[in-house]
Structures are given as C-alpha cells and as structure tokens.
C-alpha cells in the first residue's frame, strides 16, 4: 500500500501554490436500466494546495458525481484525475481505499457518525485502517478533537451531542490521518444558520493552517466563505470565480444574535 501512496513530504505542504488536483476532460456515464445518464460532460479543473473551493450547482448538475470522483469513491468513465501526480483512474480498489484513508478526509451532510460509539472512538476510526499503534491512534484522535474544540466531549455518544457538535466530530475524524485535502459534501445542509457559520469558521481556520478544502454547497451564503467557487450546470463547469470580499466566519459570528431557547 505504501508503495502506491506516497505521504506528502513537508516541502510540498509548505508550497501553497503547488498543484494538488488536476482533472482533465473527465466524463462520467451511468447506466440506469436502458437509459444512459451522462453525469459529467468533460470537466477540467486544477486545484492547488491551500485552496478553499466551493462547488455550487443545482441538483443534477453533476456536482455530487464530481465529489465522488474527487473522493476516490468512484472512477471516471474517461479522462484523467491526478491526485498529487498519481493517476487515480489507474488504481485498484485497494489502492483507492488507501488514498481515501491517508490523503482524503470526508465530511458529509448527515454527519455519518457511528451511533453508540463515543466521539473519541468515532474520530479514532480512520486510524484503525491506517495500521497505527494504539498509542498513536489515541494521541491523534484527541489532538483532532482539540482542533475542533471538543476536547471536553470525547466520551459523549453522537446522540448526546448537538448537530453542530456532531459535525465537528465528523471534521475531527476527517482530520485524524492528516489528509492532503478535506472534502465536504453539504456539511451545513442539516444545520441552522448560526451553526453553519460556526462550521465554516472551523473550515476557515483549518484552511488558514494550510489544509486544502473542497466543499459542495447550494447555499450562496456558505460559498462566500471559500476562496474560489466553481459553478456546475449540466455536467460541466460553467463558471470559475475567485471570491471577492471574503468574510471571516469568526467576525460574522460576533455580529449574529445568539439564539436563546
């Protein structure tokens, strides 16, 4: 496994302009019974280290399919996808699993935590598949939970946590194997607006520390917090704009009234 997945060298991470993702003319078809769905129709994009990209688009625009490809959960029907200069389309399932484990961090709309499993154990989960020893696993899991500000909730079960806290646990889980890129699929879709901004604050802070983030959202308010937006429509990227006047989520939070109930 380690022969396929080269750990990112420290020299690479210090160069924020270096290329992390290169997608060239990617097509994706699905066979749905008799009909053939053309979900992606020639997508090309390059994402560099340290970027914070928001992917926008209506449902059916192909943005979810694109995220699944970026996340190595799926392979393109044609075209190339280079992740840290490795052509992912050529890799087998085992190698893809290793990439998902070491290089990618996932955050989902529905949190997707294991129920009846403590926050700490949920965060520890990816390290189990990374063959780390027990001590290292716990150290990293605690560290990740501290990063998202949940060090005092380690032994809580998901059912004992609020939606925002659950999403923070999910973010901690995505960080625990120190990935090159964090992929978030509608991470604020199940959260109220204040909590959504809180989550975006976490993302901005992580991005400030050098983590590359790709986020799918259909809320323009959320996409403002990113540095760059890609707009998908009919399986193609229609617009690719840098975000002007990017607000700091931390400051937006101060301005928001606290909800008392």
């Amino acid at each position: 496994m380690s022969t396929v997945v080269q750990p990112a060298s420290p020299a690479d991470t210090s160069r924020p302009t270096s290329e992390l993702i290169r997608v060239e003319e990617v097509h994706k078809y699905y066979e749905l019974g008799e009909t053939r769905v053309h979900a992606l129709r020639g997508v090309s994009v390059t994402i560099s280290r340290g970027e914070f990209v928001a992917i926008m688009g209506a449902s059916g625009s192909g943005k979810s399919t694109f995220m699944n490809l970026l996340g190595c959960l799926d392979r393109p029907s044609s075209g190339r996808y280079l992740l840290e200069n490795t052509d992912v389309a050529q890799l087998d399932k085992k190698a893809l699993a290793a990439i998902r484990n070491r290089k990618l961090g996932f955050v989902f709309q529905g949190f997707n935590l294991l129920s009846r499993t403590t926050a700490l154990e949920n965060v520890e989960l990816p390290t189990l598949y990374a063959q780390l020893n027990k001590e290292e696993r716990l150290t990293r899991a605690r560290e990740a939970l501290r990063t998202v500000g949940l060090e005092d909730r380690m032994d809580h079960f998901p059912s004992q946590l609020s939606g925002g806290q659950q999403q923070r646990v999910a973010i901690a889980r995505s960080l625990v194997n120190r990935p090159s890129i964090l992929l978030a699929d509608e991470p604020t879709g199940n959260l109220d607006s204040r909590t959504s901004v809180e989550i975006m604050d976490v993302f901005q802070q992580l991005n400030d520390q050098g983590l590359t983030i790709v986020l799918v959202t259909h809320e323009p308010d959320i996409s403002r917090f990113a540095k760059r937006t890609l707009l998908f429509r009919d399986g193609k990227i229609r617009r690719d704009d840098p975000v002007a006047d990017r607000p700091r989520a931390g400051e937006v939070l101060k301005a928001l009234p606290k909800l008392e109930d």
Partner: protein
Amino acid sequence: MDFLSILRVAWRALSRNKLRSSLTMLGVIIGVGAVIAMVGVGQGASQAVQQQISAMGSNVVFVSSGTVNRGGLRLGWGQTKSLVYDDMRAIVRECAAVRAAAPGASSAEQVVFGNDNWFTNVQGTEPQYFDIRDWTLAAGVPFTQPDVEAAANVAVIGNTVRQNLFGAADPVGQTIRIKDLPFRVVGVLNAKGQSAHMGQDQDDVIFVPITTLQKKLTGDTWLRFIVVSAVSRQASYAAQQEITALLRDRHRIRPGQDDDFIVRNLADIAQLADESSRVMTLLLASIAGVSLIVGGIGIMNIMLVSVTERTREIGIRMAIGATEDDVQRQFLTEAVVLSLLGGAVGILFGIGSSLLITRLLGWAVVISPAAIAVAALFSGAVGIFFGFYPARKAARLDPIEALRFE
C-alpha cells in the same frame, strides 16, 4: 486493521443485540452440545461392551458341543454329547495357535452351607481355566492339578455364591455340601459381572475339578465345552480354523456334513459389538451434526440481516479507508465469534448433559476430548462457512450507494 481491533468491533456489534446474538448462538450451542453428548453416549456404550468382552478373557475361543438334527427335532447348542476330554488334549497338542485349553462340564445343584442353601451352576474344569479367562481370586487359591488327578472335593466359589451362602464371613477353609457331598472351599473369585452376550450372572457359579464333577456329580464323561486361549488376539482366527479342522477329523465328519460342535471366537463377538456401537455413535453424531448445520444457517441469516441494517456503517467505513478485505474480515469475524462462543457454551452444555445422563439413566457416558476438539473446530468452521457469504456481500457494497442508504 489489527486483529484485536477487529475482535473489539465484532464484540461490540454482537453485544449491541444481546438477545439476537444469544438466540443465534443457541443453534450452535444445541448442535455442539448434542454432538458431545451423543458421541459420549455412543462411546460409553461401546466401552461398556468392550469391557464386558475383555472380561471373558483375552484371545479366548469357545468350543462347545453343537446342535444336532434328530429326525427333524433340532436341539440347542451344547445338547449333543460330542466333546470328550481327549478332544481337549488333542487341541492343546496339535493346534499351533493354541496356548492353553481347559475342559468344562456343568451340573445344576443345590448347595448347602450351615442353614443357608443356594441353587447354582457347578462347573467342572482344570486350574488353567482361571488363567485363560483372566479370572483372579479375591481370597484363597485355585484348586490344583493334583486335586484334579485325585478327584478331590474342593471348590472355588463365585462372588454371588459367596454372598448368598456366607454373607460377610470368610468362606476359605469352610465346607459346603453339594449333592450331600462335602466340599472344602479353597478360593473365592473376584466379581466378573454379567456376560456380554447373554446377560447372565457369571459369578453365580462354583468350580470344582472336572474329574470330581464327572465321577461324583454327573456320572458321565462328556464335556459341555472347551475354553481355549490362543497365543495372541490375531492367532485366535487361526486357532478357530485349526480346531474346526481337527475336531471334524477326530469326529469323522465327512465333507458336506454339519459340524457336531461349534467354535466361537471372542474377537469376532468383540468386533461385531464394536461395529454396531460405532455405527450407533456415527448415527447419533450425524443427527447432532445436522442441528449444528441448522445453527450455522441461523448465523448466516442473522449476519445477512446485520449487513443490511449496517449498510450505512459499511459505507462510512469504506469512505474513511476500509478496504473490501477489511469489511469482509470484520463480518466474518463476527460470524466466527458467534459460532465459537456458541461452541464454547455448547461444550459446557454437552459435558453437563453427559454428566446428567450418567446420573439420571446410569449409562456410562464417555466425555471424549477428541469429540470436544472436533466440535470446537467444527463450530469455527460453521462460522467461517456460513459467515462467508454475508461478509462477501458486505464487502461488495458500493460505498456511494451504501452512504446513501437510509
């Protein structure tokens, strides 16, 4: 994922549904328990038969006077007068496979000691009889060859006779009366129990010198049987053939004519009994084995349910880096833990029911380590076999689909 973590995850998944897990295990518990108890009953029966047979003496060949057809009236074994003392001498002298032989004749007599009396079987024989039949004395000594030559009034009594005539008293040196003749008791035999083939009490007997019996009790010179000891267990077959040939020759039986005697090999009887108890053990074990397989199907069923229920969990695990092998190993481990745990409880259950059978029914039940080992191995194999398909199904899930599963 290291083995310990897999085990922990499996254990947690199983303990989350305690009732379901224990009901699933019940199938394996009953299966394994039944295998151990049934094999135990079968082997116990087999061992009891073997013990009874070896109690008759090792390498023994029985020669008895045969049946005869007198104008259509067939008489039972031992009814003809065809064996004589010289036949026995000839067997010892001429059959190479024969180590020793002792004559036997008997008479049913009323025996009296003091105020007690007892109706029993008085057998005439020679001292080597006790050796051939591996029959040891509890007290005193056997009568001797000079006693036989002198037709002395001496007796060696069986355990049942001792109990009935003497109670707790020491019989050695006492005088009993058989057909109003005084006999001095020189020895008391150890108990031998019931005979294997007819279930009669072998200890209800008095042995006297053959000459004494013939001259003073029956008045004739016929032998009822000759007990032969072959040089080895294997040689008992050769001995059987040699004796048959010799006696046919001595009794002038023409080819095609029936024997007027019968030669029975204890090894044959032992083998037959062994065979039948082995078949019974096999039959019981396979019935029990069927329930083990039913238990395995139960495991497969519950694992399939579990895979469906946990589709989302499988999707999450795959998204964060679990390989197909990881997922497969996890579900397979769960199935094997279920079946091995069931196996372990089943072993205790099997041992418990074996002990219960022994206590309640008085059957000799052998708790064999081999059956336990086989049952444990088999329950593990059941887990692997019936867990494989559900685990494969889990591993083959598409992570995208699995994550979308509600």
